[in-house]
């Protein structure tokens, strides 16, 4: 038997489980998995130390640092299996255990991808309706174990980064851009960056000191739009603040309206191909279904909803026990079988047929439909 075959044989029982980076260790893990079947060694090891498992990415909160009155930076040390090869601008899923249940949300990474420090950070802003974000900002203690979903997202800088960049951000939309800025600063690649950031008041500006620091170096100019004093930022103001903006590649992140306006304006100005946006919330109006009555067969419940209400929300309205995770279509926890009728995916507009298993958190009824829940 060749070594490769042996390695493959050893690793066979842990196929389908995230592999360890160290191949040799992974083969040992595979061997022991034959003894621990149907479990894997990780299932025993993580009872000793929660971070000793690559079956599920985990992390330990090492620091909670307040940024503003209602936002904080969380520094997390990931456990086995986490890869530090993410791109600045990407987001990571965080699972937090509260009152017996795991709650998931995704947050932009603000730390430059660097293995040597062994930690990642995210910035969280407490939202008035956001149960989890409030908890993350105010209630998490260092030492807490969190679950992690591998970094993903395509709101990233091109490689190598363009000479001239424009960032347009608002509120907590600044977080992925801070990740980019930190990475560029670390690599000393800040060449020519223009940045427009909107916040309500100056107290609300996240990373204020850090931004000032960048302002002091060459190549970074910031325009702050304080909306309670200066009014809303409109794309037409670009000419006023950065007349050369048409030469820049644009990355924008913030509320729906801002991104919509910017998209329209850039299109008009013939720069549509040079805009990269990140939407934190799903746009419900663009591809909404017509709505209808959603029936839940097993629970025997039904509810009539409009085309902007997801199946998940519909079920929760009438007290059906709906499984859910990230609530934005990335974790697959909320998958359920559509037994009758049609639903439409809010993001893609794709219609699903009876018999398909769909993500209830991002699908809205397109007419009447029935779910096996």
């Amino acid at each position, binding site marked *: 038997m060749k070594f490769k075959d042996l390695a493959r044989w050893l690793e066979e029982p842990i196929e389908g489980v995230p592999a360890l980076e160290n191949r040799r260790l992974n083969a040992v893990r595979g061997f022991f998995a034959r*003894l621990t079947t149907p479990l894997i060694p990780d*299932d025993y090891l993580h*009872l000793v130390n929660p971070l000793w498992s690559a079956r599920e990415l985990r992390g330990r909160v090492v620091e909670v640092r307040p940024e503003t009155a209602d936002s904080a930076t969380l520094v997390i040390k990931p456990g086995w299996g986490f890869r530090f090869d993410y791109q600045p601008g990407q987001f990571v899923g965080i699972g937090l255990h509260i009152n017996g*249940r795991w709650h998931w949300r995704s947050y932009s990474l603000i730390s430059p991808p660097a293995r040597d420090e062994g930690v990642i950070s995210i910035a969280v802003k407490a939202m008035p309706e956001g149960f989890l974000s409030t908890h993350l900002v105010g209630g998490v203690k260092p030492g807490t174990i969190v679950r992690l979903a591998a970094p993903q997202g395509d709101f990233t800088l091109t490689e190598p980064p363009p000479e001239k960049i424009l960032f347009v951000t608002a509120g907590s939309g600044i977080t992925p851009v801070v990740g980019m800025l930190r990475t560029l600063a670390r690599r000393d690649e800040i060449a020519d960056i223009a940045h427009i950031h909107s916040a309500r008041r100056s107290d609300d500006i996240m990373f204020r000191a850090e931004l000032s620091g960048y302002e002091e170096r060459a190549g970074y100019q910031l325009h702050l739009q304080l909306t309670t004093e200066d009014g809303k930022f409109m794309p037409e103001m670009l000419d006023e603040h950065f007349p050369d903006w048409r030469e820049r590649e644009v990355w924008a992140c913030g509320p729906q309206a801002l991104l919509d306006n910017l998209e329209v304006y850039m299109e008009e100005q013939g720069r549509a191909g040079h805009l990269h946006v990140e939407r934190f919330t799903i746009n419900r109006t663009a591809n909404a279904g017509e709505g209808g009555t959603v029936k839940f067969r097993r629970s025997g419940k039904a509810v009539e909803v409009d085309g902007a209400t997801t199946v998940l929300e519909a079920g929760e309205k009438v007290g059906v026990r709906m499984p859910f*995770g990230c609530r934005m279509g990335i974790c697959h926890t909320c998958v359920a079988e559509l037994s009758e009728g049609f639903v439409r995916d809010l993001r893609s507009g794709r219609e699903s047929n009876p018999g398909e298993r769909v993500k209830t958190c991002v699908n809205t009824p397109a007419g009447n439909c029935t779910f096996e829940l």
Partner: protein
Amino acid sequence: MAITDIKEYAHLTTEDVEALGRELDQIRAEFEESLGESDARYIRNTIRFQRSLEFGSRAVLFASWFPPAWVLGTVGLGVAKIVENMEIGHNVIHGQWDWMNDPEIHSSTWEWDISDPAAHWKQTHNHMHHKYTNVVGLDPDVGYGLLRVTRDNRWTPFNLGNPIYNFILAALFEYGVAIQHLELGKVAAGKKDREEFEELRAEVLKKIAKQIGKDYVLFPALTGPAFLTTLAANFTANVIRNFWSNAIIFCGHFPDGAEKFTKEQYRNETPAEWYLRQMLGSANFKAGPIMRFMSGNLCYQIEHHLFPDMPSNRLKDIAARVEALADKYDLPYTTGSFPKMYLQTWRTIAKLALPDRYLTATRDDAPETNSELKFRIRGGLKDTFAGIDPVTGARRGLRSAMNATKKQRGIVPAIRKLIGRPATPAESVRALQAA
């Protein structure tokens, strides 16, 4: 013939049954609402305990050439396997812990330490058995396709071996469960899709190979000089687990008083009647804290059947509420000591090895199966016992009627003695009518 009209049998009106259903819904909602941190801690601790016990027992078995170590390791491993199968595996696969939203303790990902693949179990058990509970011909657990456990199944000479099959099934229970989803009977009759069957068979064989490889090859080999004693220990632990889980499960539906139902009853059933069927078709047994834990809380089989995805640690409190409901609606709440319930299952299985003509009771009035005819045959008992007692104002229903008929049961042996031979079913009916 098993129960065809559950309302008539239960001495309840449509409104009564619907009201009962609403009360049960209310209980479910209340308990679901109250799930929280302490429940999550319970299952995590249970898992931690089970894994530590298994690890420790396997470690002790490295010295299994030393008899006390053998005994300690074997018993420990047996207990660990029981806990893994009963309180953890069965309950997790039911989705009892899905509310935690924890991918590692979730019905969609859990695989258990037994020959049956979890995905198959979700079909035969979670779906078929729990939906069609005790419906003769639909519920695969009524006799497991091997045993005659009710007079509703026609006797064939094959049934003469009933007690022997039961013993073999108990010893090899994990394999019996593993092949249940293959539906070998249907395959033999050519009624099952060949390709589907082969796919399922491959899954079962793969799982069995993994289990056997671990317990009978790898672990013994790892203990080196203790190879044979470790092998024997693992084998014994598996057999202990098999007998135990078989006993617990049989006590859920085969003791006297766990009723069987016809497809007619199932066909027109409302959700509230489904609840009622679960109550009448299941049986509990009395248990202290250790027994509760070791049975995976299936000592509360009635409550588990009413709410299959309710976390097991809550069934004890739910049971108090359900028993109160049974009192209110004058319904039987079948329970007894574990030995009593287990012996009843054996007694029925032994008895039903024989053809009906050697048995005294009829299909409508037997310890293991009753029907609404029982009360018709007994002439007017239904009328007498339905409704409200004019004197005490208490509701009188099935339980009162059952108690009354029980008192009259002494007549049958008396007549049998009188005529000097076992009564045929027809004779028993006549005797009853005369009484």
